[in-house]
């Protein structure tokens, strides 16, 4: 009979055991009667020789090996009964656990989905990402995207890997329906095969389509198919117009397919302009991923890549010298989200610890109250281990019930949490309650139950049973008072860490919000714009179109000024160029770097730049006049120290041969956002007129251009008219990523604001829990001291003295907690300083204010039990014993 069936058939086994032993006794009695004994004497002897029936039954039960389980069932029943009897206690304890576990589970669900889950491709552990690495570093570091010829060589020569490549594509989708901007990718024909992704319908690209001159084919996303083509079943073979070129749709990706973010249109990478694909010295943003072949390890792959790298370095010295290829496991790219998540996870963990301390002190108080009951059990023969287990069963049940509620709480709270996330949470679609999360919640609950069950369980009585039974059982032994105080100390300490962190974040946010971004953020609309593809072919025509666009924009009612610009302050995207202040240029990796922005003449007016010297660009700065630039005061200070730089020359080799004349100096603009700009390595800024941009750059720049307009009305009000006015003669020019400058400025603080909000919530919860804990512990301790207080009052203490006695007792404990908490809070402050841009060391005033908040709250929690004690009736108090 297996262990399980022995558990399952417990009742039947009990019955059989009884029957078997009874048979023995009966049979023996009968035999003794046969031998001539008197029936009564016979039964007496049979029983005597058989031994104690109950002891034997117990031994037989032990032999079954299911004893601990039977005990567990008993303990669970007992706990349920006692919890039901003390519903208030149970509700507070379970609610506290649910809150703690629920908050931690929400955070874990997000951490799990965003950071821990593998990529949603087949067998993701076999996927690797490749990059090029040089033995030397430039200002951009030493890792590079791939050159296409290098990719082709690796693909054919590295046997251990099946390689594929992609780069960001996308563009303006037109044809049927309104033209719109669609993100997308250019991909190798084998991309879906390597990732192990099956297309929803249609087919992947063929190898002969993945080369120059191949048939124009495209794959669209499930999303685009649903939205733009209304899930038309005959989609395969339909036309898609992308950036003016007509493609034939051959496939649809499965729902939710992602490649470094969403993509709606996929085209063959091999059809990109041959100039980009043939040049080994160009690194046009191509990413290379691969799948390890069966039997191959990452080490094999790396060894083969090194061999290929060495061969190419010898063969193509110009482009590949000291350049090699490196493979690493493919991981989800989630940017800087992880530090935010881990910070929050840490904060939540502190809340959970406070919750545990609370429940522990509740349980301990109960254990003290039940001390006599437990002692009685010990006296009746319960082993210490058995009592220990019973105490743990109780805390484990509180934890499991609380944990289950916590999981429900988390299930409800996860989606709102994601909705609150500033900007887009990467991999948000992966955030779900799955068995990892359930396992986490279960383990967390059980670990918590150990944390808060340990103290009461260790009190399980073993010695001096008689002494305890005889005493009144009303005295709290010193050790348990010390434990109670320890709980309050830790709660206060943990709460102060969260309070000070929240306070410091709040201070930072206020300081950052009041910083001058260097632009006038009110009433400015910024939007990316795609010109009609037909106009991009000829630079002269492109320039004329931009002029036309600006002219039309200026005439939109409510618009005061309009400009075009390539990189916008506080929006992702920048162009970093090396510069020098004499014609004697050092090598490019030793040149200082500045942020270069291409603008049209009204840009200063639109953005509200402050001109401190010279002039801004005007209509005279054209292709034929001398090249001019405007610099910001940061560059003026670093490159020209005190001298007035207007009229001086500077060299920007990547922008043109000759020197550029500095015609003006403007105030620094916080390009990297309000929070991050001060810490950035590249801050100096150069503005140059789009009108003087060399023809060879015009097309590329025009693909990246945004337009910015200053309005006299709320900026979002002009969007529709602007959109309509700028459609162009062919109706395929679109505005996308429409933002106000104010939104961009405020988004640059979103992370700090989000952290502040959550830390604020956590700190509030922590404060509340700590107050409940202080109140509970103090009520309990004061209650235990009632006879003592009564005696004091009987010999003349007045109400004020009793109040002082109780408050003083509490203050000492709180002060200890504050001391420990302040140290921890300063350490936490250092951590935040490292993780959050713009965060400064915790100011003493913040610390002081938060300590004051906590002390005030703690005093409130102290006052109620203290007041109750001071109003005791002496006679009742003395009689209580």
């Amino acid at each position, binding site marked *: 009979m297996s262990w399980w069936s022995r558990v399952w058939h417990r009742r039947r086994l009990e019955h059989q055991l009884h029957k078997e032993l009874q048979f023995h006794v009966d049979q023996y009695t009968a035999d003794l009667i046969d031998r001539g004994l008197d029936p009564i004497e016979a039964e007496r002897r049979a029983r005597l020789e058989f031994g104690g029936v109950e*002891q034997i039954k117990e031994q037989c039960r032990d032999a079954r090996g299911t004893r601990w389980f039977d005990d567990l069932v008993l303990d669970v029943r007992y706990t349920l009964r006692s919890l039901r009897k003390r519903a208030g206690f149970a509700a507070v304890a379970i609610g506290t656990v649910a809150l703690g576990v629920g908050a931690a589970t929400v955070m874990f669900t997000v951490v799990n989905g965003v950071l821990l889950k593998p990529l949603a491709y087949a067998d993701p552990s076999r996927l690797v990402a490749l990059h090029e690495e040089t033995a030397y570093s430039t200002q951009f570091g030493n890792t590079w995207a791939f050159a296409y010829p290098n990719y082709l060589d690796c693909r054919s020569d590295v046997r251990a890997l099946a390689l594929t490549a992609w780069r960001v594509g996308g563009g303006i989708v037109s044809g049927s329906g309104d033209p719109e901007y669609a993100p997308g990718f250019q991909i190798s024909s084998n991309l879906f095969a390597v990732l192990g992704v099956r297309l929803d319908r249609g087919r992947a690209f063929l190898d002969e389509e993945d080369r120059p001159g191949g048939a124009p084919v495209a794959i669209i996303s499930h999303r685009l198919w649903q939205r733009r083509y209304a899930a038309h079943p005959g989609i395969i073979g339909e036309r898609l117009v992308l950036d003016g070129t007509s493609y034939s749709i051959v496939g649809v990706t499965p729902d939710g397919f992602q490649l470094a973010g969403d993509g709606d249109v996929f085209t063959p990478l091999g059809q990109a302009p041959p100039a980009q694909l043939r040049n080994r010295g160009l690194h046009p943003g191509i990413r290379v991923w691969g799948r390890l072949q069966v039997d191959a390890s990452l080490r094999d792959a790396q060894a083969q890549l090194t061999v290929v790298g060495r061969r190419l370095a010898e063969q193509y010295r110009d482009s590949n010298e000291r350049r090699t290829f490196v493979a690493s496991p493919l991981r989800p790219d989630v940017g800087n989200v992880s530090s935010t998540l881990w910070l929050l996870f840490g904060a939540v963990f502190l809340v959970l610890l406070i919750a545990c301390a609370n429940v522990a002190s509740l349980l301990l108080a109960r254990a003290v109250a039940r001390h006599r009951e437990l002692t009685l059990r010990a006296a009746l023969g319960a082993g210490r281990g058995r009592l220990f287990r019973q105490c743990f069963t109780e805390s484990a049940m509180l934890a499991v019930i609380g944990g289950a509620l916590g999981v429900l709480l988390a299930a409800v709270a996860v989606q709102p949490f994601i909705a609150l996330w500033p900007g887009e949470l990467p991999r948000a679609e992966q955030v779900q309650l799955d068995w990892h999360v359930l396992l986490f919640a279960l383990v967390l609950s059980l670990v918590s139950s150990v944390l808060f069950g340990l103290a009461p369980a260790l009190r399980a009585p073993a010695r001096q049973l008689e002494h305890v039974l005889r005493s009144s059982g009303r005295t709290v032994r010193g050790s348990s008072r010390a434990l109670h105080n320890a709980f309050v100390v830790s709660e206060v300490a943990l709460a102060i860490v969260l309070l000070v962190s929240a306070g410091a974040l709040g201070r930072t946010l206020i300081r950052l919000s009041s910083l001058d971004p260097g632009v006038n953020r009110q009433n400015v609309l910024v939007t990316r714009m795609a010109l009609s593809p037909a106009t991009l072919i000829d630079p002269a025509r492109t320039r004329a179109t931009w002029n036309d666009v600006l002219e039309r924009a200026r005439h939109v009612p409510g618009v005061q000024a309009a400009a075009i610009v390539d990189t916008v302050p506080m929006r992702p995207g920048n162009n970093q160029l090396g510069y020098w202040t004499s014609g004697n240029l050092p090598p490019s990796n030793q040149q200082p770097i500045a942020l270069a922005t291409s603008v049209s003449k009204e840009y200063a007016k639109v953005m509200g730049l402050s001109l401190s010297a010279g002039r801004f660009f005007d209509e005279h700065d054209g292709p034929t006049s001398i090249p001019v630039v405007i610099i910001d005061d940061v560059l003026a200070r670093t490159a020209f120290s005190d001298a007035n730089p207007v009229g001086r020359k500077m060299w920007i080799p990547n922008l043109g041969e000759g020197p550029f004349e500095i015609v003006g100096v403007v105030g620094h603009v916080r390009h990297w956002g309000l929070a991050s700009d001060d810490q950035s390595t590249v801050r100096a800024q150069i503005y140059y007129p789009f009108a003087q941009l060399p023809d060879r750059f015009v097309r590329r720049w025009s693909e990246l251009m945004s337009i910015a307009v200053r309005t006299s009305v709320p900026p979002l009000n002009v969007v529709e008219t602007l959109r309509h006015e700028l459609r162009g003669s062919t109706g395929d020019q679109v505005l996308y990523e429409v933002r106000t400058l104010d939104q961009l400025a405020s988004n640059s603080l979103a992370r700090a604001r989000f952290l502040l909000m959550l830390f604020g919530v956590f700190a509030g919860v922590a404060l509340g829990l700590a107050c409940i804990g202080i109140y509970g512990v103090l009520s309990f301790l004061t209650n235990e001291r009632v006879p003592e207080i009564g005696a004091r009052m009987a010999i003349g203490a007045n109400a004020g003295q009793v109040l002082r006695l109780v408050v003083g007792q509490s203050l000492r404990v709180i002060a200890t907690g504050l001391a420990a908490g302040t140290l921890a809070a300063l350490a936490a402050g250092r951590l935040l300083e490292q993780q959050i841009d713009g965060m400064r060391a915790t100011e003493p005033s913040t610390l002081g204010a938060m300590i004051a908040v906590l002390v005030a709250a703690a005093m409130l929690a102290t006052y109620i039990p203290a007041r109750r004690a001071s109003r005791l009736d002496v006679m009742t108090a003395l009689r209580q014993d």
Partner: protein
Amino acid sequence: MKTDLPQGTLDLLILKIVALGPVHGYAIAQRLQQVSRDVVQVPQGSLYPALHRLENRGLLVADWKDTDRGREAKFYRLTRKGRAQLETESASWQRLSQAVGLILKLSEGAE
């Protein structure tokens, strides 16, 4: 003279008795007493924990059957595993008792 049973030998004795054919607990107790001519003293009840332990270890199986007197009783039988266990244990018991006997003789001779 009555002797206490050496540790672990009760199991061996039970297995040996059950090996002779299906038998209930009471009969095992009787036979233990008869065969050992009352030398081996086992409190009758303590037989049962041992029987249950052997059953749970899969050395014995039991069925409920009627006795000659028409009462239902639990009859134990040896399993294949039980028989193997009986063989190894009785072999090792014999080796042990021979060795002990030899040692006892030796020390007599040395005197």
